[in-house]
């Protein structure tokens, strides 16, 4: 049985690809439910195989685990010994397995959810094809054992994300959002490419094995640059500062897409990359420091914006950004297991929140503005209770999943001495509780229903069952890490055995209760401002309108980028079109033509038709040539006898 799972490991990767191709090729000829079935089946089979492989590999001792890391040879990308050998082997180490489990597991739930959610879409088959393509690319990203294939997956998930954000291609705003996401992501792809060039220059290889074997040999400075360029990739993919602006706009995509790609899996690829490249960051403290700062600042930056947004999905997007900031901060300070743990619980509760929000949006005809919701708890009790579980989990209330993982991250940050960043994420933890419960109150509780659409509480079982499963996981998902029993760090010890810092969480009781109190304070404030005395929110809104505008417009980063990049580029392009092209590009060949014509005119004057003038020209020319020949080849001794 063990051998069966291990030999079938490549199928984990290829089932979703086969699914995507099958739906794309044969989808139009079969019933639409068949393509949905194929889409779910392929991811489901991948999930089952991943579970099997995990059960085979994870119980083994460390040394034996490592044997399977590069055991599946699939093919060569380049084979030019001794200069360049890039092979493609599947990586099955614990870190990859954790990501694979989440990608296929949560992916399966979201695929099933999509069966109901997308039922009215006319591009139903295309949707499942794209989703399967995404799962394939994401698996390729985490199962690759070198940076080149990782980059293929990296670009591939960017492509799938582009296709799915712009899925409603008839809405121009969705298309623009898709384009924005693609451009931002490509900046990150270029960052990883530059890091790969540096790796090849210094190590002569881009495989994990060769690069991570002894990274310190090339010196701290070169290593820091590699780390920084990798971080550029991570920042773009994970929507961290300063490349964060695409994620809120990406909410134009269908809700299952937001849940799968822009919450649970793709946006955490940056965390995976840094955790994967941890030997580089362990030996390049400066790069690791920058990673930590980016994560910590993004965590509080996004949390503050989330407090004032009105679009339910945008709040969740900013919350995702903030939570990924936690993960990036954790891996930046060297607490890789804590970052991976928070990734896991976040995948559960953020997918849950998006899907519960999707139930609401689905029920009220696509409305996403929380000012047009309210009082939905009685009409949509299932969505309310599941959303509430998600909100409690993300706020970090005991004993829900977020409590354990967030505590783990905060512990790590405190232990590894980042006082400023620690305060940042501590405040962000309070803000998280506030904005999540602001959503809960405004959407489900406050006052009567404010919208105009009728409420249709008719979600079918394909939608409710995945949400229920995720709700359960959001409750119990944190219990892997208890005091003196850190199952996540134990599971990942094979991947982080060479990390210098201890990975197992140590509980700091004071901190635990402090964070809990902060989260409760956030919830209490949300309750006071939106449920108990709504005039508090109104008064705050009025007295702090400048701050509100700043936050509502996301610190005007979009405006800044507009002025910094978009407008100069447009101005340059206009100048090139209207001035440069007319005056230089068009004028240059025209000048050439005029010059040719003038020369022709000149030569034409020579052509008199008088035979004797031709003769004279000929004689003068011959005489000149003779003179030149004698003068040049014999110099002063012109005409001397040979």
């Amino acid at each position, binding site marked *: 049985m063990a051998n069966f799972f291990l030999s079938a490991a490549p199928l984990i990767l290829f089932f979703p690809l086969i699914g995507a191709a099958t739906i794309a090729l044969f989808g139009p000829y079969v019933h639409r439910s068949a393509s949905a079935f194929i889409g779910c089946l392929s991811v489901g089979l991948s999930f089952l195989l991943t579970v099997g492989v995990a059960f085979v590999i994870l119980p083994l001792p460390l040394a034996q685990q490592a044997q399977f890391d590069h055991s599946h040879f699939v093919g060569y990308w380049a084979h030019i010994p001794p200069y360049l050998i890039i092979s493609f082997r599947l990586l099955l180490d614990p870190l990859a397995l954790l990501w694979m489990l989440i990608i296929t597991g949560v992916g399966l739930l979201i695929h099933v959810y999509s069966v109901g959610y997308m039922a009215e879409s006319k591009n139903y088959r295309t949707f499942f094809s794209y989703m399967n393509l995404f799962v394939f690319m994401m698996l390729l990203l985490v199962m690759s054992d070198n940076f080149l294939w990782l980059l293929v997956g990296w670009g591939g998930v960017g492509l799938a994300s582009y296709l799915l954000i712009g899925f409603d291609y008839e809405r121009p705003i969705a298309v623009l959002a898709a384009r924005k996401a693609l451009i931002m992501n490509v900046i990150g792809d270029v960052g990883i490419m530059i890091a790969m060039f540096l790796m090849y220059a210094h190590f002569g290889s881009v495989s994990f094995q060769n690069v991570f074997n002894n990274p310190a040999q090339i010196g701290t400075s070169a290593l820091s640059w590699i780390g920084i360029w990798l971080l550029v990739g991570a920042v773009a993919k994970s929507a961290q500062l300063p490349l964060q602006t695409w994620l809120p706009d990406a909410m134009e995509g269908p809700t299952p897409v937001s849940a799968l790609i822009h919450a649970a899996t793709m946006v955490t690829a940056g965390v995976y990359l840094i955790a994967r490249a941890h030997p580089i960051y362990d030996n390049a403290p400066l790069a690791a420091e920058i990673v930590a700062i980016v994560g910590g600042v993004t965590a509080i930056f996004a949390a503050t914006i989330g407090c004032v947004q009105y679009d339910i999905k945008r709040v969740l997007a900013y919350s995702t950004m903030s939570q990924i900031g936690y993960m990036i901060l954790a891996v930046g300070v060297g607490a890789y297991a804590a970052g991976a743990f928070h990734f896991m619980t976040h995948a559960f509760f953020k997918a849950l929140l998006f899907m519960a929000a999707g139930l609401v949006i689905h029920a009220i005809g696509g409305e996403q503005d929380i000012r047009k919701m309210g009082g939905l708890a009685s009409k949509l009790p299932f969505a309310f209770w599941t959303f509430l579980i998600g909100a409690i989990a993300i706020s970090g209330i005991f004993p829900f999943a977020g409590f354990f993982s967030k505590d783990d991250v905060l512990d790590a940050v405190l232990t590894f001495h980042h006082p400023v960043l620690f305060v940042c994420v501590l405040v962000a933890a309070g803000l998280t509780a506030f904005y999540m419960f602001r959503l809960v109150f405004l959407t489900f509780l406050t006052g009567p229903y404010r919208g105009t659409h009728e409420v249709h509480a008719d979600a079918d079982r394909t939608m409710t069952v995945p949400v229920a499963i995720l709700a359960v996981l959001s409750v119990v998902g944190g219990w892997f890490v208890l005091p003196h029993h850190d199952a996540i760090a134990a599971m990942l010890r094979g991947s982080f055995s060479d990390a210098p810092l201890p990975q197992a969480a140590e509980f700091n009781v004071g901190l635990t209760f402090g964070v809990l109190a902060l989260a409760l304070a956030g919830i209490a404030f949300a309750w006071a401002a939106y449920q108990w005395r709504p005039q508090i929110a109104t008064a705050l809104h009025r007295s702090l309108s400048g701050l509100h505008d700043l936050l509502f417009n996301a610190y005007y980063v979009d405006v800044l980028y507009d002025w910094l990049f978009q407008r100069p580029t447009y101005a340059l392009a206009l100048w090139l079109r209207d001035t440069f092209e007319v005056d230089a590009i068009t004028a240059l060949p025209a000048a050439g033509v005029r010059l040719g014509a003038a020369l022709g005119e000149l030569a034409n004057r020579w052509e008199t*038709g*008088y035979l*004797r003038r031709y003769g004279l020209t000929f004689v003068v020319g011959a005489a000149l040539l003779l003179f030149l020949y004698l003068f040049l080849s014999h110099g002063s001794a012109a005409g001397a006898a040979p």
Partner: protein
Amino acid sequence: MPQVPLNLYLELSAVLFIIGVIGFLLRRNPITMLMAIELMWNAGNLAFVAFARNYIDMSGQVFAFFVITVAAAEAAIALAIVVMVFRRRENADVDDISIMRG
């Protein structure tokens, strides 16, 4: 028999060539111009055979025969052209046929 020095042959060749050039440039009758060209050909030929004799190398002599052959062909074509022009225009002044310029 006293050897005529090479210089004298070459000087004669140069004089013949210059006479030919001047004749070609100054006369307007095509027949006369052809004769001037013939003079230039033969100035060249004289130089060839003079060198051949001086250096005792027969290739110069051989080359002179080739020149004579080519000159004969040239004269035949040129005379044919002159006859054709004369038939059409009753006149053989080369300046009058400058109308044929490109």
